[in-house]
């Protein structure tokens, strides 16, 4: 093995827990304490922001807790909003294993939803056990190919995947608008152009005893599967090697290009599946309402979870809770619904800035210097 390849493996192995116990506990504490501290700082900054708008921060915090976990209704609202975020976050987290920053989850979500709707509309009388898997396959395939295309451009043409995936989102939205106002429009939808609806029988129901749809379970399972893929399979290990040192990965003969395509496809597939669930569990038809912003919020969830697929689960619930509290803030404090997006933006910026703290808290990790 060449020296460079060895360096790549060493870099990967260094991330595995071979340090003494105190360091290990410290490192684990670090990955929890720093994001929590960053969250608290973000909430304080948001408090200053709403105070400038003449609203009491204390009231804001109170309504945020009430609106996210204050009642069974709020909890269900939070979980319903978390469900798509679990999947759209994977759209950023999976390619991130290879050091790719994909931010086109919104496009994969929209295109997945669109193709799933088309499939559902094309099979009006088929039994649900055929329609639902067919719709899911359409959403997964369309979303996967959408982001896979960004991966292909990156691999074969060296096109920056961050820019191309975002441009693809705008194109996906244009395609959606074009179709629902053109050939795929239900003539009966007068005021708001929409596609025909899928059959009631094809809709995914709620988890028994709740108002939360099955998308939540799908999302949690997808995150667990992604974690196993990344942490416990050769493929995932190879992808992380390529993300750590791409030249080393090439030198030891890893199929870097195929890994890029696969992980981009899987990321897009997750977001496309989220789009399918949005149609099959919530909206029942395609329209401009599919531009939900879940794709963009998923980027934040993935970064907040440090691209760790298991950590996405609690983070998605947390960010879903912030979104769920938006309604109460609007109703009681007259804050615009975009206020929660401002808070998400603050969290995102502060979390990234907090990256500078890792390994710099000697009292925590026992590291010197």
């Amino acid at each position, binding site marked *: 093995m060449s020296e460079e390849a060895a360096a790549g493996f060493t870099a990967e192995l260094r991330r595995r827990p071979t340090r003494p116990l105190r360091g290990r506990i410290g490192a684990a504490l670090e990955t929890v304490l720093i994001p929590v501290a960053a969250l608290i700082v973000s909430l304080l900054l948001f408090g200053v922001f709403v105070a400038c708008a003449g609203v009491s921060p204390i009231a804001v915090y109170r309504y945020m807790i009430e609106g996210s976990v204050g009642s069974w209704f709020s909890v269900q609202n939070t979980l319903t909003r978390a469900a798509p975020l679990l999947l759209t976050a994977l759209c950023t987290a999976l390619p991130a294993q290879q050091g790719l920053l994909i931010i086109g989850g919104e496009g994969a979500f929209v295109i997945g939803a669109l193709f799933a709707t088309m499939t559902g509309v094309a099979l009006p009388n088929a039994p649900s056990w055929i329609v639902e898997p067919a719709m899911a396959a359409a959403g997964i395939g369309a979303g996967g190919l959408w982001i896979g295309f960004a991966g292909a451009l990156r691999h074969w043409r060296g096109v920056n995947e*961050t820019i191309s995936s975002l441009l693809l989102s705008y194109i996906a939205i244009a395609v959606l608008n074009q179709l629902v106002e053109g050939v795929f429009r239900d003539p009966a939808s007068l005021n708001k152009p929409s596609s025909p609806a899928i059959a009631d029988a094809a809709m995914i129901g709620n988890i028994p005893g709740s108002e939360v749809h099955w998308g939540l379970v799908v999302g949690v399972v997808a995150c667990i599967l992604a974690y196993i893929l990344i942490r416990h399979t050769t493929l995932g290990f190879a992808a992380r090697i390529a993300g750590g040192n791409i030249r080393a990965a090439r030198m030891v003969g890893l199929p870097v290009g195929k890994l890029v395509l696969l992980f981009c496809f899987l990321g897009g597939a997750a977001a496309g599946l989220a789009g399918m669930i949005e149609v099959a569990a919530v909206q029942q038809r395609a329209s401009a309402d599919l531009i939900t912003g879940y794709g963009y919020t998923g980027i934040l969830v993935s970064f907040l979870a440090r691209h760790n697929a298991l950590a996405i689960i609690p983070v998605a619930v947390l960010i879903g809770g912030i979104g769920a509290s938006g309604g109460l803030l609007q109703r009681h404090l007259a804050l615009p619904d975009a206020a929660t997006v401002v808070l998400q933006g603050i969290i995102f910026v502060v979390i990234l800035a907090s990256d500078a703290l890792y390994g710099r808290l000697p009292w925590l990790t026992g590291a010197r210097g």
Partner: protein
Amino acid sequence: MATGSIGLWAVPLEILGGAVRVSTPFLFVSLGECITEKSGRINLGLEGTLMMGAMTAYAASYLSGSPWLGVLAAGIVGIALGLTHGVICSLPRVNDIAVGIALMLFGVGLADDLGKPLIQPAAPQLPAIDFGWWSNVPQLRHALTVNALFLIGAALAPFLVWGFRATRWGLILRLVGESGEAARALGYRVAPVRIMATGIGGFLGGIGGSFLSLSYPGSWNERISSGQGITAVALVIFARWNPKLCFFAALLFGAAGALGPSLQAVGVHGGYYLFNAAPYFLTLLIMTITCSPKHNLIGAPAELSITK
């Protein structure tokens, strides 16, 4: 016939006039990003800066009655966002692309939030100069009515070419972008130069945003930019970090952006959304053609993370 006496000639005329109009934000954002990237940093947050600039300019113009105060306010907000990006990226182990994404989402959300009361009122607009006074064809006169900001941007491009090449500031900026090590060895501090370059880039991005809301028939809504900032960032790569080429590339993207409205003006309504997405298709196509997986782009500042 809606096109009047000149028939289908109205389409190229509309596109020409539209190219000049639509290119203005592309021009300002790309020149600003050019300065930032020359210093070795990339700011993807200019999409958010563009939105904040548009919102602030509209608000300031409405409240003060002067559109130029609006432009100035947009520039100041742009500086604030640019400096935020610059300072955070100067912290150790912080990824400038990720911070750009965060500030993009932050800027778009903040503009949406603060801009809610601005959807109704009408703000004073920037003046446009009528270069078509000699003609009596209305379409031609419309095409030759050029906004004052475009002229400023057009003058800025050759000024930047000169500045990069012939001034001490330009040399330090390029040195920092090519090799931070060499700059340090010569006694220049890298971080302040990059922070300043990002601040100036934000200033121009904010001004580009002011054009969106203050050029006839200007208004504010939360979808006013929809990707023009990120397109302009890609445009800098296409223009090989050369301000002069940025100018022509901005015109090209402006023409692509004007395609949809031009066709609509002559009564072609099919494919409206797809034609409006023409700049995104064009950007993807151009990046696919000009980028290469084999070697770095010619003219790319060596310290730039996005081309490494």
